[in-house]
């Protein structure tokens, strides 16, 4: 865009004077390429050049008509463009090289919270950046607002209101047939995904979301079923209660009850449900649920964090047995997170990092620069599905929306109260003794043995058979348990996201995943393609990956017109139905049988992913050198963004030739797509996206303040329970939608390529 104004495409010299209180000003000189230097980039250059940690203001020098020197504030990309233009014009008039003179004024460090309030009113800025970073890949320069007005307008309208109202009772009935069977399960999830559930309905609908029931039950059958399960629960609970009553407890029982007791006494105590004295009956219920679960799932046992997961279930169900059943269903998906081997969590971190790398490489690199790319400050977010990051009531909404984005697992329904022991192939012998002590009298031994055998032999083969049996619910659920991915390398590998190669894991799980899904895929592929083409058409006005700049601009205009129309009608329903349509098509047919397009094109990819562990230090050094702005040299153009992309490519994203080849053909965004393997690890992109959204929404703040690792972690800590759930969800949905869109386009290209071959 700078070229439009007619100034040269050459580098522009920049002279900066830093003023801080009464201290003597410091000077720096460097050059930038106006084509690729956005305001944000300039800010980060300045922060680096002067080693600024706090906030600072930038002004640029101009001469007024009388030739008087004044400083104009430089606050945005527009200002920066104007500043470049001024520099160029001045240079032309006196026939010299263009030179931009800046002044940096330090502001005192302010409390983050104030800024947050302001930020809430200015979400657009985040949005501009997010969009540009993805769509304007060929020229990462932030061109300002007018390139993407449609999204912005849409954003403004939607940011603080959910795309649709929560699921209401009358609406819920529409998804049922006269006998109470859920006939439109997918659609039901879709509705919840967009609007959540009316609080009064949660007690009923959460059970569906958590796959508590086997498929196809009528209302009456469900009632019988839950009654039966509740009785089973009471039996299980009485077993250990008797053991406690009989005499002094020791060993595992004592250990477990001790751990659980400590934690239930400090779980959500600010909530009226658990408030008051420690004798609160609800605390006792929470204790019972967790203890029963731990003793009957010895491989998982109890781990801190579980009380946070069980607590909202108990509050919502307001019934101990029902909450227990829901908790078991939830743990079906989440138990691996609590495994001592850390494999599942490592994988989640990998996905989060990949997602961030894809959505916002610049921020990712910022994190990397500050050695925060291990993202460990997100640990609790991932482990507890963001439950603690929001106010309690908001977290319920967050959870149900997340859950609705998970696949329906037909047949999983009969989550066994008794023995989903097969959570992991990680065998912890200490729990076996407990198992012997407390289980045998109460549990179905054969089922236990069966599931044990399975847990020792978690092979893709055994997973494939999932869903075929009808009655034997326990074996079914163990079969279907997508819990243990083929362990990457050694099971002892500890959680070290930075040094464990993401690709290694990815490749394993991809293979795994593809095996599970291969048969489904073959059936669905042809029909999917149609859907995808339709979807791609729908989105094509927004984004075409290989479009040239001019075509792109045209399309954007077209899309703008389209969107203006939408906004005129101003009915959220419209957008909702449109998006919903897309989602209905995509979310279930496409995403949930996700496969790695890269893998598909080159089946050997996975095997090639022998990625050498890069020592952390090395990676950091590699990164540091190009990105640090040399304050004195500055004859050569500084191209921060390009360098950043370059490094991210070198270091992380594309270490294998097959992928590189693909990159050239379909351009970066596709290759950079995070490869989520939903069935394997139980994270959906939506989940990861909410985390990303939360990090993302603070990225400008973090970057502008030049926060280091400590400040970042503490910043997010301060934000606990203060995130706006609607906003976060809306943006996460958008990211998810974009992810799906990109994926479908990528997928389509690959299909087409395959056909060509």
């Amino acid at each position: 865009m700078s070229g439009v104004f007619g100034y040269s495409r050459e580098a522009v010299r920049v002279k900066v004077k830093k003023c801080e209180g009464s201290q003597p000003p410091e000077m720096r000189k460097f050059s930038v390429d106006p084509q690729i230097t956005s305001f944000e980039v300039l800010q980060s250059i300045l922060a680096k050049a002067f080693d600024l940690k706090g906030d600072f203001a930038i002004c640029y020098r101009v001469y007024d008509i009388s030739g008087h020197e004044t400083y104009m504030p430089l606050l945005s990309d527009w200002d920066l463009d104007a500043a470049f233009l001024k520099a160029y014009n001045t240079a032309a008039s006196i026939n010299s090289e263009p030179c931009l003179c800046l002044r940096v004024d330090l502001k005192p460090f302010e409390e983050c919270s104030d800024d947050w309030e302001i930020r809430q009113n200015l979400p657009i800025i985040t949005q501009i950046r997010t969009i540009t970073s993805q769509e304007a890949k060929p020229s990462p320069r932030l061109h300002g607002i007018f390139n993407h007005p449609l999204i912005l307008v849409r954003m403004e309208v939607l940011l603080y209101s959910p795309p649709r109202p929560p699921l209401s009772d009358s609406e819920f009935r529409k998804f049922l047939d006269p006998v109470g069977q859920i006939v439109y399960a997918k659609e039901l999830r879709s509705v919840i995904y967009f609007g959540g559930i009316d609080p009064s309905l949660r007690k009923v609908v959460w059970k569906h979301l958590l796959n508590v029931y086997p498929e196809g039950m009528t209302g009456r059958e469900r009632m019988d079923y839950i009654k039966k399960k509740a009785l089973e629960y009471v039996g299980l609970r009485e077993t250990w209660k008797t053991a406690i009553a009989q005499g002094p407890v020791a060993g595992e029982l004592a250990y477990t009850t001790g751990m659980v007791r400590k934690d239930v006494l400090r779980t959500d105590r600010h909530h009226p449900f658990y408030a008051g004295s420690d004798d609160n009956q609800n605390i006792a219920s929470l204790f019972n649920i967790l203890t029963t679960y731990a003793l009957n799932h010895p491989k998982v046992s109890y781990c801190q964090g579980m009380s946070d997961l069980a607590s909202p279930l108990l509050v919502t169900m307001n019934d101990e047995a029902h909450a227990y059943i829901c908790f078991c269903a939830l743990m079906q998906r989440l138990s691996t997170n609590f495994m001592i081997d850390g494999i599942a969590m490592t994988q989640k971190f990998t996905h989060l990092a990949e997602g961030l790398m894809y959505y916002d490489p610049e921020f990712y690199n910022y994190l990397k620069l500050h050695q925060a790319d291990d993202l460990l400050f997100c640990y609790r977010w991932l482990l507890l599905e963001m439950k603690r990051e929001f106010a309690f009531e908001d977290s319920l909404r967050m959870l149900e929306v997340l859950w609705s984005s998970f696949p329906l697992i037909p047949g999983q329904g009969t989550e066994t109260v008794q023995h989903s022991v097969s959570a992991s192939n990680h065998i912890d012998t200490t729990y076996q003794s407990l198992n012997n002590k407390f289980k045998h009298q109460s549990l179905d031994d054969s089922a236990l043995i069966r599931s044990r055998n399975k847990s020792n032999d978690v092979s893709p083969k055994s997973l494939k058979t999932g869903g075929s049996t009808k009655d034997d619910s326990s074996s079914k659920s163990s079969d279907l348990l997508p819990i243990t991915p083929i362990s990457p390398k050694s099971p002892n590998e500890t959680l070290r996201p930075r040094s464990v190669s993401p690709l290694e894991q990815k490749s394993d799980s991809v293979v795994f995943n593809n095996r599970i899904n291969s048969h489904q895929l073959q059936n669905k592929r042809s029909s999917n393609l149609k859907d995808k083409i339709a979807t791609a058409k729908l989105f094509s006005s927004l984004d075409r990956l290989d479009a040239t700049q001019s075509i792109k601009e045209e399309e954007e205009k077209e899309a703008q017109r389209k969107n203006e129309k939408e906004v005129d009608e101003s009915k959220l329903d419209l957008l909702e139905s449109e998006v919903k349509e897309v989602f209905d098509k995509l979310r279930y047919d496409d995403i949930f049988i996700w496969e790695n397009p890269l893998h598909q094109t080159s089946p050997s990819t996975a095997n090639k992913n022998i990625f050498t562990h890069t020592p952390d230090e090395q990676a950091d050094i590699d990164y540091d050198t190009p990105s640090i702005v040399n304050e004195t040299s500055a004859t050569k153009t500084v191209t921060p963004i390009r360098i950043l992309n370059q490094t991210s490519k070198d270091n992380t994203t594309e270490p294998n030739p097959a992928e590189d080849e693909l990159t050239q053909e379909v351009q970066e965004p596709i290759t950079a797509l995070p490869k989520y393997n939903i069935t394997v690890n139980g994270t959906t992109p939506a989940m990861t996206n909410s985390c990303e959204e939360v990090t993302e929404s603070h990225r400008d703040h973090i970057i502008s303040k030049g926060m280091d690792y400590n400040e970042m972690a503490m910043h997010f800590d301060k934000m606990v329970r203060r995130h706006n759930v609607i906003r976060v969800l809306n943006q996460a949905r958008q990211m998810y939608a974009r992810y799906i869109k990109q994926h479908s386009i990528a997928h389509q290209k690959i299909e087409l390529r395959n056909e060509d071959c």
Partner: protein
Amino acid sequence: MSSSRKKVLLKVIILGESSVGKTSLMNQYVNRKFSNQYKATIGADFLTKEVTVDDRTVTMQIWDTAGQERFQSLGVAFYRGADCCVLVFDVTAPNTFKSLDSWRDEFLIQASPREPENFPFVLLGNKVDLEPRAISSKRAQQWCQSKNNIPYFETSAKEGLNVEQAFLAIAKNALAQQNSTFDLYNEFPDQIKLTNTQKPSSNGDSCAC
């Protein structure tokens, strides 16, 4: 504000059984607040505080870890680069004292400091405001002596008793540790200097020839 001078950052890890008061100690020290309602720490949290040790201002970064050993798989990431390790037990709960050995060993294995036998630990016996007491000072001190004279403090995070003093000792130990590590690193530039000084002399030789 001298931005040019490199700030000293001391990384301190607090370890110990669940609910011995790690979070409370950290918050008492940094924020001078106590709450009965801290939640179980998941993963790790940390706070920082500026302290003056021997006329030197340093930033202490205090890592509060989860007490359940299940989270120890995170250890490597969290323990790396620690300058001091604070072990905490509850003077009213004997099992929290008994597990100190394993916490210490675990730390040494995971963090693998350069000189494990000289790595600074500090032991805090917390909750001295509570009765009945299960671990006497004598017993705790004996343990400390057996571990190369670890400094021992009896604290109450609730009443803020001894917390300030304990953390000052922690900071001092951490700083000493960091200085000793720096000395090790400083050998490296020295070697370069050596070659630098050799170079001109060899040049001089060649010129003379």
